Structure formats: C-alpha cells, structure tokens
C-alpha cells in the first residue's frame, strides 16, 4: 500500500488561441475571481493550485499559461518541458479558435511526450459557454468523436465567468495523470543540479514535491 500521505506536483499547460480565455480560466480556478477586462499575461509563468485529492493525497498543480505573446505558436521548449498534462482551450463563439484546436494538439504531441514515450493527457475546454452561442457543441456525440480522433481524454463546456465546469475538467485531467503515473516512476533522473538564488545545492529528484 501507499504511504499515508502523498504529495504530487504536476505541471499543466494551458494552450489555445489568443483571447479564448486561458488566463481567465486560470484566474478563476486558482484565485476564484474573474475579470471581464482583457489583460495580457505579463510577468507570470504559472499559477499554483493545491488540491486535497483524497485524505491521503495532496496534488499541487502548476498551471503554465502560454506567455501572452508567444502567440504565434512559437513556444520555447522550456514551456513544454516536463509537463504532465494540458488543457487546450477554444472559444465557442469563435469557430476559428476551434479549427486551431487540432493544430495545437499536433504541435503539443510533436514537442512533448511523457518519459515513457506516450503523449500527455489533454482535456479540451469549450470556453465561454455562458454566451449561449455554442453552435459547435449542439452535438455532443460529434465532440466525443472529435476527442477520440484527436486523442483528448475528455472535453468540457466551461465558463470562467460563471465558474462552470472548471473544477470538473481539472479533476478529469488529474485523474488521468494519476492513473498514468505509476509506470513513470522509474524514469526519474537523479543528480540534477538546479541553481537557485537562495542556496545552491544538488536537488535529488527523489525528494521532489516537498515544500
């Protein structure tokens, strides 16, 4: 059996076209607020969300926004590296952002795999569903089919504004990551050096995720 108390730290990516609500989703999820004023993402790498998954397990999620301006699809590898899962977001009121979804998914799969070579778990978010123009989604079966074809583990209609389905989508993603994780343990790399401001030291990965 597992140790009585386990902590996990996962890096999750939030990807999608400009203005689909990536930052809003993160803000809603992590900070429980929403602002209708648009603001580019400046100076922020990631936001941290702590989930008390079950009595034995704490999950810390690092949500990495694509830096607002890496928007031409030219993300650095630093962004993708060692991510365990991703949300790909589109705006239900703008069909063009849905058309870009497959492109984002291909791009992600080409640049990132789990240490065992498998693709990371990705959940598709149909955001701004509060605006009632979800012409794309009137056929749930079609969306299921789309997800199957493109390798998404699931999809959700979300609204950062009304706080709809964001927690649910996140739980779905975390569930898949946890299920994948057992066969990844062996591939952890020891003796990695991470130079810090405070105290330079050798951090062994076996002691990770402790704070």
């Amino acid at each position: 059996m597992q140790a009585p108390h386990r902590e996990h730290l996962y890096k999750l990516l939030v990807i999608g076209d400009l203005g689909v609500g990536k930052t809003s989703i993160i803000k809603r999820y992590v900070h429980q607020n929403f602002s209708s004023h648009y603001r580019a993402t400046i100076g922020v790498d990631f936001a941290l969300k702590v989930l008390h998954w079950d009595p034995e397990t704490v999950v810390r999620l690092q949500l990495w926004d694509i830096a607002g301006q890496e928007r031409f699809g030219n993300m650095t590898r630093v962004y993708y590296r060692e991510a365990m899962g991703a949300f790909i977001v589109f705006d239900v009121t703008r069909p063009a952002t849905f058309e870009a979804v497959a492109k984002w998914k291909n791009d992600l799969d080409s640049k990132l795999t789990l240490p065992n070579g498998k693709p990371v778990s990705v959940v598709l978010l149909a955001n701004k569903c509060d605006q009632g123009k979800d012409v794309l989604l009137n056929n749930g079966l079609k969306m299921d089919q789309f997800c199957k074809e493109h390798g998404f583990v699931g999809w959700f209609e979300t609204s950062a504004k009304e706080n709809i389905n964001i927690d649910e989508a996140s739980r779905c993603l975390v569930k898949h990551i946890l299920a994948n994780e057992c066969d990844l343990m062996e591939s952890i790399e020891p003796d990695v050096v991470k130079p810090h401001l405070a105290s330079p030291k050798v951090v062994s990965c076996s002691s990770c995720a402790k704070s």
Partner: protein
Amino acid sequence: MADSLPTEFDVVIIGTGLPESILAAACSRSGQRVLHVDSRSYYGGNWASFSFSGLLSWLKECQQNSNVGEEGTATWQDLIDETEEAITLRKEDATIQHTEVFCYVGQDVEDNVQEVGALQKNPSSVESSILTLDSACLPEERHTSYLTSYEVPGTNTQKSDRELSPEVTDTEEWLEKEKYCEDKTCVYTVSDGEKDENKLRVKDNTDKPKKNRISYSQIVKEGRRFNIDLVSKLLYSQGSLIDLLIKSNVSRYAEFKNVTRILAFREGKVEQVPCSRADVFNSKELTMVEKRMLMKFLTFCLDYEQHPDEYQAFEQCLFSEYLKTKKLTPNLRHFILHSIAMTSESSCSTLDGLKATKTFLQCLGRFGNTPFLFPLYGQGEIPQCFCRMSAVFGGIYCLRHKVQCFVVDRESGRCKAIIDHFGQRINAKYFIVEDSYLSEEACSTVQYRQISRAVLITDQSILKTESDQQVSILIVPPVEPGACAVRVMELCSATMTCMKDTYLVHLTCSSSKTAREDLESVVKKLFTPYAEAEIDKEELTKPQLLWALYFNMRDSSGINRSSYNGLPSNVYVCSGPDCELGNDHAVKQAETLFQEIFPNEEFCPPPPNPEDIIFDGDDKQPEASGTSNIKMAKLESSKESKSLESPGKHFQN
C-alpha cells in the same frame, strides 16, 4: 494561431542566439516592447540543439542554402519614401561550411524508419535525408557501412566524397578500410536481417560478449532522445552565465548535470585527472609524493597573488616552462597545463596559466566535484530559457520570420524601421541584429575565424568505469606545437542528449583547415569505426563510432562593431558563438550592449515569484490590444527579491 503583428516596438531583435536572447530578456524585463524574430524555424541560431532528424534537416538546409528562392517575399521598395534609404539583410545563412557525414552502422534500407513523434517540419526531410545519402554507394541489401559527404555548394565544389582528400594518406587508408568493409558485405549480400543476426550471434560468442548492437534505424527511431548541440560549451559553476541565470532567476527554467570527470590524453591513453582534494587523495595513479606535490601546487594557485615571490621572476615565461621549475613530474605538469588550466603549451604565459588554474579551482565544489555544469537537453536550452523570460514579460516571438531590410532616415542617419517578408513595416527605436544577418556588403572588409566541429555517436565511453553515466571533458594537446588543442566532450544519455546505450561526443577546435582535416586524427586516436566484421582485440578496447558529422562554423566573436560598413548608430550587432569552453563572451556582449542602449536600467533583475503575484480582479485600465501597454503584475511588497526561491515552488519532476 496567427494574428497580425503590432507595428510599434521599442526594440526589434533579429536572431535568437544566446546574446540576442539574453538581450531580449533584459529589454522585456525593463519594460521595453520587444519584437524578437528569427528567420529559421527553430530557436537559437548557431546555438541550437537538434533531435537526430532535426539535425538531418539542418544539414539539408545548410546544403541547399545557396538556392533559396525569392518565394512569396513582398517588395519593400514602395514602402520607403524619399527621405529614407534601405539597408538590405542577407537572405541565406553562410556561417556553416564543409559539412560531412559518415554513417558506420548498418541500415535497413527497406525499413521506413521515422523518428517517433517527431515534429515534421519538412515532411520530406526525415526519410529523404537518410535515403539521399549518396545512393551510389548503397548496396541494395543490408550493408555494414557507407560514407558520404555533404558539401556546401559553392564552398568546396570540386571535392566529392569519392575523392576524399588524397593528400591525407593516413586518413585515406582509414576510409579505405571502411569501403573495404562495405564491399565485403556487398559480396555476402545477406538478403534478410535474421540471417545477419545469426551471423552476429555466432561472432559474439567467440569475441567477448557485446551487449548492444545499434543500427541506424534505431538511431532514427529514437531520434528524439538526441539533443545535438551545434556549439559545444559548458558552464563554469562560478562563471558569468551561471551568475546571470541565478540573478535573473532564469535558472528556474534550466536544469543541469555536473560534469563528472576531467580527462587527459597522454601517451595514447585516456586517464582521469584528479582535481579536487578528495580526487587527489583517492587517486590510484599518483604516488604519495606526487599527491603532495600536486596538493601543494594547487593550494598555492588558489591564492597565488599573495605569493608574488613564487612566480614574479617567471612572469614573462611560458606557463609550461614555469611548471618545470616547480618540481612537478611530467605527469602532473600535463594534468595542470592541459586539463586544469586548459591552456596551450606554446603560448600561455605564467600569469595567464595561474589565473586559469585559479578560476578552475574556485569553481570546484560549488555544485559538484568538477568546475563545470552541462544543461540538461543541451546547450540549446539556454537561449530558449531567456526567450521564455522575455515572452513572460511581454516579448513577442516570431520564428520563420525574415527581415528584408532596415529603413534608415537619411537626415538623422538613424534606423527607423524594418520591413519583413510580408512587406510589413515595423517601427522601433533600437535594433539588435546577429551578425549572420548582415549583408555581404556590410561585412565586406571583415575577416572571420572558423571553428572546427565534430559530432560523434559512439557505443561506449572513452574511459569505462562502473558507472556508464559519466559526463567527461578531455583536452587533447596538439601533436605539433603551435597547433590547436582539441576539446572533447562526452555526454551520456542522462544528460538527455542521446539515446540509451550511446554516447554523444563533441569535438571542438579553432580551425586551421576543414573540420574533418582538423579533427579526424583525434577521432582516430580515440575511436574505431563500427564494424560487424572481425576486429582485432586491441581495437576492441576503443569505443566504436556509429555515426559522425563534421562541419565548420564561423566564429565572429572577435569582430569589432566598427568593421561593419554603413550601419546606423542605433543598430547593435551581436556575434555568433565563439570557440571558448565557457559562455562569458556572450554574456559580456549582451550586458555591454544593454548598458549602452539603456544606461539607467538594471540588467536582468530578478522577476517576481509567480506565487507572490496578486491578480487584481478589478483592473481599471483595460488594455486595448494587450501588447502596446505593458504593465508589471504586482509584486507583494513584503517579499524582497533576495529570497525569491524556496524549495518546492520550483517545478521539480
């Protein structure tokens, strides 16, 4: 994914090499609106690292460079008015020459091998690169080895792979052997792979057991495991790059491996150099007396300035001569001169030698047992880390974005704008450009040095130990005095730069001829070509070469800004990679240029910690476009920059 680019910036940066990327981070960080473009499809320019298929595509690009078409480039002439003139930029990259590829391992031609999960930049590239490797010498069936050369058109056209430098007889013999093996296999014409395997197994029983047999298709299939650096460098653990990474907190994006061994090549043998106190005492190669002598000398070097009487009389002498006066055995002198000070026997002064030795010793122990760190996933990560920092602070990134010309105001002589390949005019106050983008006209009087590089994939370490995960650096001194020492870096799969059961070996030296001519003699000393056929016992002790690439890269690091003709004063020039082991040149260049452009701004101060940022929900000044008006996210004032890091805030896998 795409929408139109804003047209007003403070700084436009062309090229994503290390100095440009540091500058991008520094400028964005200080609140400048930065546009950072690269004409290539990848980050890093000549500082990039590639997967195996990525490297093959890069080779192809180098080869085809001279016939880059004018496809789809809008004309810029109409966009310039009478008061302005244009300075055009170079359309193709001319910094790589004399590329030559040698593949020693067997390949199943029938196999439609592809890199698993590779990004298909040019869908044709992966396969065709393999198959176009001089099909003339490919037999129909499985074959042991073949060789080919990519020559950059126009640089050395008269030479083909069939007539590989007949003047180097030594080399020729070696290659002949290769061809011979190949022919032999052709005669056997093993028609299916299984039969071949059987043959191997029989041989394995007679020879000493060999664990891994790696084929070309395996290398291609596992190609993503490779991150092959175009420049081979390390970070001094007290060097300016590490300091900058830490100070700016860009280090949060990077992870490193310690270089685990410093090696020396003496009398035909590779040995480990003891450099820390523990190493010296544990060394089995050194006698007690030698240990004492070495410790005494190294201790002296740590604060040599305090003991001027010890070296003053020798200040004008060569360091190698000075060492002879210090009662050190030849063994120890070799270690100190080549592996610790890493200097030249025939040109390094005593003072420089002492300084280099001290630098080395000071770097010991900060992170590990040797003074060096290597970035996980390769050196190419480092520019990307700075680009990420720039992007996080609002920098806009466009790869595959060509710039046609600078627009210069005739009256003021200052650059006002660039015109890109879409014919869009983008205005800015300052322009930073990597020198490979400058036109031939601007560089007509410039004399460049060259760097000779080799990249090898091998099956074993050059010095085997219990651990097969060593990261080693070896300096091979020149045979003739006055020639250049060759720096050899051997990376194991734990550095995330090569597939399991292989090693990635980088050779670097300052060029005197083509890369192969400069480096092949050292390659021959250390390695033996992969052969499935019988090999004699002595050769077996050397690692086998599976694949090799040679190329020359232009070294523009010594070029003075004033050597370029007719550049406006607000166009700043960054150079490509230099030949040195460390990254000091790039860091210094970036800092100097930044200070020149923004004398009152701090260079790369630490950013706020993501977890200290408070999103303010009621933002009263919504931004119109998200790019024109850059604001810093608020930093909780109680937190000071000194303690931005705390364990666990960092992503640790």
